[in-house]
Structures are given as structure tokens and as C-alpha cells.
């Protein structure tokens, strides 16, 4: 080993001595060209990976078990979103309807769509719950009361859920492979920027809206509403 090292040192010293009078380091002379090129290649690779490939790899796409048509349902029902996503007598929110709620109308096949056929034969007739994947599912550590926001705060469904009520098809559910959370929590844009209120539902989004609507900062440490508002 030591012999090899010695040889290398000798070569390096020799080269330096030989090229000493021509400043190789100047850009015009070429050696900086490849260096710069490699820098930009590296930069480009990172940018492509970071902005293009990484988001593709990070999320897995899963189709919903039934291609649900929100638009059609909203047209059919009388009470808008609350027809199916209602508040229970005790004030708790029903969230995703159970099969028993669906059966009230879908006892038998309605219409001729493929989705309806799948729904009635696979779930209604078998009495199984549809394993819907919830786009807006918050982590378990978050306490969220729909009643406080919708009834007391008078916030519309769209503020947080967007225009899902106008969709013809159930879009694919994208799950973060690392965290297991829905992509909707971080937001569609990998950059994290958002234009609309519903585009991202991280803690800062909750806190920002709380501050805006209540005008209150109760925690000195976080400069937001205190932790226990959501983390109970």
C-alpha cells in the first residue's frame, strides 16, 4: 500500500511541476468546461429526480373499490352533502356513509353503469362495507370535530374538501409510501405551495386558518392556537 501511495504522490508532484507555467485553471483553457458541464448535469439530474421522478415514486396509486359519481348523487339528493355525510343525533359526524345508509336507495341496482353493478352485487347484496379510501383522512393524533367547523364555524364543505361534490368519477387514491397518509394532506403540488384553501391539510394549514378566523394566538411557543385544540 505504502509503495502505491508513494508513487501516486510522485506523479502528482511531477504533473504540478510540469504544468506550472500554463494556468490550466482558467475557463478558456478547457479544464473548467467539463467541470461546469458535470455540475450542470448533476444539477439537472437532481432537479429531474426531485421534481419529476420522486413524486411519482413517493405515492402509490390505488383505485377506489367503486367508481363513485358524486355529481350524480348531489343532483339526486335533496339536502346536498349532508344527505349522505350527515351529523348524527349526538352531534358526531357520520363521515363516509355505511352500507346501511346506501341501501336506503340502492336496495337493488339503479341504472346500468358498471360501477353500480359492482357496488350492488359485491357490497349491497353481500352486506359488506365498501372499503373506501379516505382522501382527507387525518392522522390519528388529530382530533377534528366536523360539528365545530361546519355548524359553529359555518365553514363550507368545499373550504377543506374542494369541489369533490362535482366530480363524475372517483379519482385514484394516492398513498404516501413512507407515511401511509393520503396525498391530499401534503397537497397535490410536491412543492407544497397552495392556491386554494383545500389544497393542503398539514398542521400549519389548520393553524393558519384558526388564527385567521379566530384572531387568536393562545400558544406563545408555536404562535398558533394551543396544541390541545387538535392534539387531545
Amino acid at each position, binding site marked *: 500500500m505504502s509503495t502505491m501511495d508513494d508513487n501516486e504522490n510522485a506523479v502528482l508532484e511531477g504533473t504540478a511541476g510540469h504544468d506550472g507555467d500554463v494556468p490550466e485553471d482558467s475557463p478558456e483553457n478547457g479544464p473548467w468546461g*467539463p467541470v461546469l458541464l458535470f*455540475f450542470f448535469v448533476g444539477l439537472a439530474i*437532481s432537479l429531474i429526480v*426531485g421534481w419529476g421522478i420522486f413524486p411519482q415514486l413517493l405515492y402509490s396509486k390505488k383505485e377506489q373499490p367503486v367508481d363513485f359519481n358524486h355529481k350524480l348523487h348531489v343532483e339526486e339528493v335533496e339536502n346536498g352533502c349532508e344527505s349522505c355525510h350527515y351529523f348524527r343525533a349526538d352531534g358526531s359526524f*357520520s*363521515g363516509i356513509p355505511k352500507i346501511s345508509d346506501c341501501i336506503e336507495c340502492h336496495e337493488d341496482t339503479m341504472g346500468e353503469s358498471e360501477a353500480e353493478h359492482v357496488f350492488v352485487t359485491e357490497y349491497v347484496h353481500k352486506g359488506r362495507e365498501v372499503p373506501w379510501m379516505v382522501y382527507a383522512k387525518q392522522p*390519528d393524533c388529530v382530533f377534528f370535530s366536523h360539528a365545530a367547523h361546519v355548524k359553529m364555524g359555518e365553514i363550507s364543505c368545499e373550504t377543506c374538501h374542494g369541489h369533490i361534490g362535482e366530480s363524475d368519477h372517483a379519482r385514484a387514491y394516492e398513498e404516501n409510501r413512507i*407515511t401511509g397518509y393520503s396525498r391530499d394532506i401534503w397537497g397535490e403540488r*410536491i412543492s407544497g405551495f397552495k392556491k386554494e384553501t383545500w389544497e393542503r391539510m398539514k398542521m400549519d394549514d389548520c393553524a393558519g386558518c384558526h388564527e385567521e378566523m379566530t384572531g387568536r394566538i393562545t400558544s406563545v411557543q408555536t404562535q398558533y392556537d394551543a396544541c390541545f385544540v387538535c392534539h387531545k
Partner: protein
Amino acid sequence: MKIDRRCFLSLGMGLSAGAVLTPLPWKLADDSSIWSQNWEWTPVPKDDVASYEKTACSLCPGGCGLLVRKVGNRAVKVEGMPRHPVNNGGVCTLGLSSLQLLYGPTRIKTPLKRIGNRGDGKWEKISWRAAIEAVAKKLGDHRKKGESHMVAAIMGSDRGTVPQLMARLLTAYGSPNFFRMPSAQDAYESTLYLMHGVQAMAGFDVDNTDYVLSFGSGLIEGWGAPVHMLQANSRWKATGTKVVQVEPRLSNTAAKSDEWVAIIPGTEAALALGLAHVILKENKQCDFVSNAAFGFDDWVDENGQQKKGFKQIVMASYSPEKVATITGIAAEKIVRLAKEFAGAKRPLAVAGRGSGNTPVGFQEMMAVHALNALVGSINRPGGIWTVPEPDYVKWPAPEMDQIAAKGIQQGRLDGAGSSNAPYARFLLNRLSQADTKNKYSLKALLVSGANPLYSLPDTKAVQKAFDGIPFIASFSSYFDETTQYADIILPNHVFLERLEDVPAPRGFHKPMIGLSQPVVSSKYDTRHIGDALIAIARKIGGTVSSAFPWNNYETCLRTTLADKWPMMVKNGFWWNQSYLPSNNGAGFHTPSGKFEFSETVFSTYQPVALEGDESAYPLVLVPYDHMRLSSGYVGSPPFMMKTVSDKIVKGNDGFVEINPETAKKLKLADGQSAVLTTPKGSVNVRVNVFDGIRPGLLAMSRGLGHTAYDDYLAGKGVNVHSLMGPVEDPLSGLDAAWGIRAKLTKA
């Protein structure tokens, strides 16, 4: 173009610079921090519809009403039922942690048959059909051989439809041997039987009393209905009700009382009679004793024999000075306490040590009851009430064939109710007696709602007695000590899965029945004991079968509760809110038709003689109870074990409390290991040097030293029952051993 080392360094720089311009590092940092919190073993409760179900707790005799919060079909929290007459929204640590009894790993999941030796823990799964057939065949065989009286049953209670079904099975089958586990209730029942002439339960109107004199009762440590008493204690503090705790150690109750009287243990009867002496001397007794009592003054019986009255006995033998030497309490203090007690508007004296599972001598219990009688605190607001035994189980007497009639005629194994123990109903303490007074031996034993192999004193002798019983069937939901020693297990649903009436909360002053309703559907292949008993009876056939006309237990319960059923389903309980006991002649069914002071009981002072020789065993060991450990038939769940102090159990080491003075004599330092020996056995313990205990006394917590259950409970501490033996009260035949002589030596 020359590609050299610098190019690659540059590429690296480019990659790095590019990376920070993308969301990749920031997003990865965020995601990995979330990932680190989302371990797959972190329990995440399911999101579902939340609901509350009403039920009644049967884990102790307290009979609390419960509201169980459910999410979907899973029970997630146990709460007290608001406005329930017993616990008014409160719940104890055992009730709170009872979900672990439902979902924990110690449950028995299917019927099992023993395949190894007894206690080896080798079991074979069998079907319910096979289990029922096995029990029915065994019982049927003994019946054919004319040995029906040699079959016994041990249960935690004798009240309600399930114990009554068991008793009915035995009666129709031909056995008089139904046993209830012993407790201070036995002494109270015998006292009421002798002094009032009624078969009744003792109830305490604790909400309306203004002076409580407790003879060692753990008022806030599980005595009576535990949650009811805790709430009463809070009200006493608010209303200024004085609580005097007579107890040789500073229990939690003593610590929270207004006055702690550290008595020499076992002399409580003398103190009660000494107080009676002062009351009589000061002429502070109420009219009740002169108007409605018999045996208060000297009297002459039908044979013309002169009999001593209670007054004369007490005046002659229990002066404060004399009592002071017996009890170790100054005479002036005895006089003051007596005056305070008699001077209060609604005083109440209570007995039954600790949670009420420690035996009480008959004389002590009757002396305390006599104190209540002297001040008129009997069957009046704020006093002790006679509460009638539940009377809703009105089944026609079962038809008995010849075999059954002959079996019943053999008489009880323990002689309870016979001439040598006329006031006792159950004498389980006689089961294990070495000098056996038993007329015959048992061939089969059925056990439910009880853990005799753990809870009865002198566990070794009990085990020996069990060894002599060829067939033991357990209906337990858990592998408790007794069940581990059984031959066949027919697991009952646990209480949160079970429909059952829960009558007569211990110490509650009004008739009341709670309804245990299935909060969740049964999780394993278990079966309601009521259904199992009906099936066994059917299989035995003949008159035994026809004694059970119900198709299943639910029908039995519904028809038994009759018009109470709809209200009980709706409210979770039924009670006779307006109940008031009669305190005139109508309430007494003694031969004289009055309240009676028994000459036999009071004539001489008879303290319970503890087992063991004083020279060999200079110390006295007593058990104690507290709210953080279950001392009943069900073992403490892990949540409870986590709340127990390091001064009671640390790791696997159990502690005994010892006075610093005694510790110094024995050269033992706090926390040091020692060997505790009683005539019943020897164990390793550690000492907890504690100022709040009388010198010469050792105290050990009940509820430890299980060999059964899970790692959280098994092997922790020492089972104090294994160190104690029963001492029969000569007057009642009941076990009266509140302690045992002991010695402590350095390990």
C-alpha cells in the same frame, strides 16, 4: 475533454445544489419524521359510531351501574352511570380497568378438559356438547349410587338468578351443599338473625348519618359498595360528619378520618362494650332499648332461671378503666368517644375489617350492633337498616324424587344451620379443617364466581381438601388458581358479555337489582353459566330436568323479573326508592317479638384466640385491603397493578408493614429482606418500616401472590391467605381469624 476527479466532485456539487432546489430533502425529512411515529404496533382505534351501553358491574359485591362507551362493536371505556343510586357516575379502578378482563390474554376461550395431572396446566379443547355431557354423566353417576349429597357448589354469592339456578340444580339433584364464599356479611346476617329474628342483609344509610364510628372498616377501601362509600365519605367531609376510625394501623380510611384510635387488634368487642358502659352509666341510651328490646335488663327464662341482662353484664365487666387495659386506649378517651357517639343526632357504628372480606368475631359484631341499638340507630335514617333478602326469584319449589329427598336429608357437610352452628348458613371454613368435623367426603365440586383456592385461608389445606375431591368443574372465564386445579372448565362469558341480574349491592340500604347486559357480543366460544346449568340439568334428566322449565337463561331471567324487566332494560336497574324498614315490633321476629340482646354472646368477654404460640410467634400478622388491588374473586388487571405503591409490591417482592420500634428490635432496615413465618407457612418478604402501625403488628396487602393470571399479576408478592388459617368462632361457627401469630427474621 478530460474527465478527471474534479469533474466528479463537480457532479456531486451539482447534484447537491439541485437537490436543495427540489422538495425532495424537505419532503423526505417530513415524511420520515411522520414514519417514525407510525409504528405498526401503535394501536390506532377504529373510527366508527360511538355509543353507550348500560350495564351493572359484578366484579365485586358493590353492584355499581356502568355506562360502557363503544366505538362500533368494541368497548373502549367504562364509566359510572350518572344518577345511579349506588355509584352516581363514579367508578373504581377495577371497573375502569375491566376492559382488560374482556380483551386481555388471560381468558379461557373454549371448554377445556384436563389431560395432565391436576395443576399441570395441560388441557384439551373439547366441544360444549362434550363438556356438558361429561359433567352431567359424572353427576348422574353419583346420583345413581346414592351419593348425590356428596356434590357441592361454591359461588361468590347466593343472591340472584344464577346462584339460585345453581342452588336449584343441587336441590333437585339431591345435595344440600351450596356454599357462598365467606365475608363479614356472614357475621352481619347471623347478628340480624339473632338480634332481629330476620333473615336479612345489613344496609347502612350513610348519607344521613352525622357521626361514624368504624371498627376497622375500610370505609374508603372497599367496604360495602366501594364507590358509594367513597362518595359518602366526600359528603361527610362537606357536612362535617365526624369519622372515628378504630384500627391498629393507619389505613387510608384512618388517615382520612377525623380521629384515628389505634387499638390493640382483636379487642374491638371490648371497646364497643366499654363505650356501651359509659352510655349506660351516663344514662344516655335511647328509649328504643327499654321499649323495643328484650334482654336489656335481667330476666327470668321459662325454667325460672335468672338470666343476666345486657345492662348488668356491661356495667359489671366493661368499665372504661378495665377496657383501657384490654384495648390500649386511655379511659378518658373511651369516655369522650362514648359521649360523642351518644350525643350525636344520628350516630352510626359499623364493623367488618378492611373491605369486609376479613372475618369478624360474633361477639364483636353483636357488640357493635348493640351500640347502634343503645343510641336507637337501628332502622332509622342515618342508621343501620335491615334490608330484606331479594324476593323476586319466586320459582316453585323443584319436584324432588326419592334420591333427591334422601340426599337432602343427609344434612350439610359443614353443619351450618344445625345445632352446632344454628346462626350460620355457610361454613366454607370447615371444608379444609384437618380435624375434620365433616360427616362425609365430597365426590364432585362445581365452582363459579369464586376462587377458593386463592381466597380461603390456609390455601395449602384447601388444596389438600380439593385433592380429596375426585371431580372439580369450574365455570370461570379466567385461569384463576381454582380453575387451574379443575378437571373440566366450562367458561362463562365475562360480565361485559353477560346478561344477569346483580341484586343487593353490599351495604346498600334499599332493595335494589342491577341488570348486567351484554355490552359486546361474546368474543370466544364461551357460554352463559345459566345456559350451561340448564343444559346440565336437562342432560341429567328426570325430576332434575323438569325443575328447569326454561328454554334458556334469558327466558328464565325475563320471566323471573316479570314486570320489573322493561324498567330494568331501560334504566339498567330497579330499586325500591321509598323503602323504610320498620323499627317497631313489626320489624322483629325474635321469640320475644322484640330486639334481643343475647346473654350467651355477651356474658363473658371472648376475644378470638389467634392461631400460633406467642413465644414462638411473637408478632401478629393482619391482612389489609385498598382500592388499588382487587381482593375478590377476580385478579387485578394490569392497569391496576401499575397503580400499586412500591411499598406494597416492588418487582416480585411483597412487603410487610412494620413499626420502626419492632424493626429496630429485629434489626431490620426499611426495604430489607426478611423471612415471615406463621404456623401456616414461611415466605420471603421485604419490610416497609411504617410509623402508622402498632408495634408488634405486621400488615400485608391482600390481592397479591397469585400463581395464576398473567405476568403482570402472577408471582407478584405473597398471598396473605396462604399464611393464615381459619379460627372458628365458638358462638357462630364462622371463621373469625382476623390475623395470625407470626415471626419475622432476617433473610
